[in-house]
């Protein structure tokens, strides 16, 4: 037993349902008690989804406990088959069904005899895997199922497309900025002259899966989801895959170079160097940003990074290598894949933190007192409490992390978004800090009625000169605070001494 208030990665069935709901016309049926269909609420709220989430529950209640699910699961599967006519029904076990140990596989076999839809049982164990691992597995399972099926039916198309093409694997519902990343990646592929064969699983139809081997290679943008499927396709069809996340200027270039060599090995004869050069100079502003004075001011500032493997590792690389920021520690909650993370960030941060306990992360933030945090919603709240700005870079996320505006994290437009995210986090912190130094937040007391400059106070030359040294955005406030102080003290002439006495008085 473990005392826990918060978790970074959800239970296994969430991962399976994310995959099922990403495909077109695939229906998830959870073997679960009443109330476990909370996934539908999340999907409907966070993604502001217009369609009904294709997930229903085969309810486990008292009767099921006493007599077993018996016909119930089979009935629910066949019923859903006739109501919705899905291509595939994924029976999804939950923590409850894990311990009931019913033979769900048997239900699946029986049900599939009378359904038009294919039926599979998601091969995930609640107590062994989390949301991300389950998603990776389920995707792999579905891919394998349809490849095998196509092979049996002789409909598998293994002939490569005439021009270079790619499968982009691992884009899912409820994935962090996935829909924007998807658009950006398609855009990037178009720029590279690569035809997108299939995007998986988001928006794909299971009928398309037989076309997977046509692509020249697979691109797996995220570490957590898609790796198993790519591995399977590599083993079966010798399809190479590129698993470098194109996040940040350097990594995007590295990803493109990897694609180049994969294609050239298959005789494409492409050279992407001019494109990388052009994009880095003209499309992405990140390279220029790193030279600009704005970024220079960030040199050596302390930051901490926490998130999933993909985003935390990429963020650490960007902060350290592209912006000269001092990453004190970088961490991940993907404990099951911690070695990968360590390898990726070694040499780029002082310390690596592997944990899924938010209190450990919180304490580590408090100990370091960074100038900015890049983490999940949980770290954002820690930041609020400690008055440290936070940029959200990974799930768990809230509705505000599902913007409708175009906000990719990947590709060249992604580098622009990241510049804003990082720079805004740091300047916000700086602004806050200056406000603190020069007299705190909005003064509630009214000094004057009216906004005219008419005043009985005079500023001496040195006082005024000092006032003008204060950054513009807080100058007005400092002026008001000083004048208020002067009035309270009965001072009519404001000198530099009065200015600082006022500042001290406010600070005290």
């Amino acid at each position, binding site marked *: *037993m473990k*005392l*826990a208030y918060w978790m970074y990665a959800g239970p296994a069935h969430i991962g399976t349902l994310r995959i099922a709901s990403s495909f077109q016309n695939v229906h998830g049926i959870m073997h679960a008690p009443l109330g*476990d269909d*909370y996934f539908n*609420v999340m999907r*409907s709220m966070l993604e502001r989804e*217009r369609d*009904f989430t294709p997930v229903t529950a085969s309810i486990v209640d008292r009767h099921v*406990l006493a007599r077993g699910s018996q016909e119930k699961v089979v009935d629910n599967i066949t019923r859903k088959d006739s109501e919705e006519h899905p291509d595939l029904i994924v029976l999804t076990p939950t923590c409850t069904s894990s311990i009931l140990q019913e033979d769900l596989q048997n239900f699946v076999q029986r049900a599939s005899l009378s359904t038009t839809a294919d039926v599979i049982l998601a091969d995930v164990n609640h107590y062994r895997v989390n949301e991300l691992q389950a998603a990776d597995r389920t995707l792999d399972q579905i891919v394998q199922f349809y490849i095998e099926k196509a092979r049996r039916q002789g409909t598998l198309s293994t002939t490569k497309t005439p021009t270079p093409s790619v499968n982009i694997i691992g884009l899912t519902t409820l994935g962090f900025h996935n829909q924007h990343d998807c658009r950006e990646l398609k855009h990037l592929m178009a720029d590279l002259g690569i035809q997108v064969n299939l995007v998986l699983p988001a928006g794909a139809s299971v009928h398309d899966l037989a076309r997977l081997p046509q692509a020249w290679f697979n691109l797996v943008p995220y570490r957590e989801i898609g790796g198993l499927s790519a591995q399977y396709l590599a083993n079966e069809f010798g399809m190479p895959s590129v698993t470098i996340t194109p996040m940040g200027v350097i990594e995007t270039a590295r990803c493109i170079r990897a694609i180049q060599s994969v294609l050239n090995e298959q005789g494409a004869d492409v050279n992407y160097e001019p494109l990388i050069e052009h994009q880095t100079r003209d499309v992405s502003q990140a390279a220029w940003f790193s030279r600009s004075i704005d970024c220079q001011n960030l040199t050596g500032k302390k930051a901490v990074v926490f998130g999933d493997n993909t985003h935390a590792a990429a963020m650490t690389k960007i902060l350290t290598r592209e912006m000269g920021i001092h990453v004190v520690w970088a961490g991940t909650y993907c404990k099951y894949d911690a070695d990968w993370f360590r390898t990726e960030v070694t040499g780029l941060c002082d310390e690596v933190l592997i944990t899924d306990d938010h209190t450990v992360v919180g304490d580590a933030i408090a100990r370091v007192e960074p100038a900015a945090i890049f983490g999940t919603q949980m770290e954002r709240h820690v930041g609020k409490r400690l008055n440290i700005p936070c940029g959200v870079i990974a799930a768990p996320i809230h509705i505000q992390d599902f913007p409708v505006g175009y906000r990719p994290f990947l590709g060249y437009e992604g580098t622009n978004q990241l510049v804003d995210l990082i720079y805004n986090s740091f300047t916000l912190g700086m602004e806050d800090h200056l406000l603190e130094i020069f007299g705190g937040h909005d003064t509630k007391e009214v000094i004057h009625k009216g906004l005219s400059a008419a005043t009985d106070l005079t500023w001496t030359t040195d006082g005024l000169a000092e006032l003008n040294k204060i950054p513009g955005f807080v100058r007005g406030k400092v002026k008001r605070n000083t004048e208020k102080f002067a009035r309270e003290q009965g001072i009519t002439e404001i000198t530099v001494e009065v200015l600082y006495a006022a500042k001290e008085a406010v600070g005290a």
Partner: protein
Amino acid sequence: MTTTAPNALNVECETGNYHTFCPISCVAWLYQKIEDSFFLVIGTKTCGYFLQNAMGVMIFAEPRYAMAELEEGDISAQLNDYEELKRLCLQIKRDRNPSVIVWIGTCTTEIIKMDLEGLAPKLEAEIGIPIVVARANGLDYAFTQGEDTVLAAMAARCPTPTAVTNTEERNPIQRLLNFGKKKEEVQAEASQYHDHPPLVLFGSLPDPVVTQLTLELKKQGIQVSGWLPSKRYTELPVVDEGYYVAGVNPFLSRTATTLMRRRKCNLINAPFPIGPDGTRAWVEALCTTFGIEPQGLAEREAQTWEKLADYLELVRGKSVFFMGDNLLEISLARFLIRCGMRVHEIGIPYMDKRYQAAELNLLSQTCAAMDHPLPTIVEKPDNYNQLQRIKALQPDLVITGMAHANPLEARGMSTKWSVEFTFAQIHGFGNARDILELVTRPLRRNQALAGLGWQQLV
């Protein structure tokens, strides 16, 4: 009580394939209500994930609740339940020092038959903090019924007069009302009340609503001697044989049963004080029980309705469909029919015809008075079937969960998220406007955005 009148309401029962919150969600409002409590939900990641996401920002406010997350070793009994719970409860005692720890049993503890009721008294004696066990799980209950299981367990903990030497001193409301008053004044005030047997109300409500309802009864000379639950566990009301009890919410069947059977109380079966009609009927039922002639209630109700005129204008003649997920549906439907709305269907997770008898009666009477056909009550609804009916009926308003709200809106249907009714203040005369504020919000939105031509966006 006139509970025997046969009502011709048609009650159907479907498959129970509907969306609702898991009953463990009750910890979210109960830990805020009972200020010195700590709620420990003994379950899995699934439970934790639900709480974390459903409770949104509340999770970040250092909540006095936590998961005791079961691991594989707990399921296969490689770990000792008692030792594990002891370790966690001692940690809670050390960090938070609560006056009570409430264990919420979940589906998993049910299935592996963890004997929480048996472990609690032993551990309670060992660590010196009361441990209350409530089995609020998704196998047996829906959403608000979670509170019912907790309050039923709490009812057993309410002290008896013999256990409390000085009742007056202990009673928080009394103490609050008497604060700073001289003894003579207190006696003078006591005379404002009729001489009636002690009345204890049950149901967790926000403190302002508690005050409003208490004062509403004071106007009739009825003294509320306690509320279950109180602001603090240490202030649970005295309950003794022969006391009168009344529920303020429709989902408190088990609590009512416990108070009647275990604590030998008399249950006043009344409609619930939701809407001005419900509030009046509730107060009247209490008065009738104590043989008191209600004073000025008709005027009070009329005044309340008057103040709702603008909202009534909006809802009149509009139709509404309750998909059913929180058990407030009967009372809300009854109120909305009185407001002039047409109710197509009242979906409800669970229908206790005895506990809700007076409310059901008032519903039938309201239908008769408003010339409204008796609506069908659908217990354990089937959301899929309901969506087909909604498609056919095209109601003006669907009161539903968040899973269906956006998809329905995209199909041109107006919806109101049902969960808001459980968190908003909806009880008493003073809060009737809040209910209509919620009900009319989609209608007002429709007015504000009329003529844009993009209602259907699928």
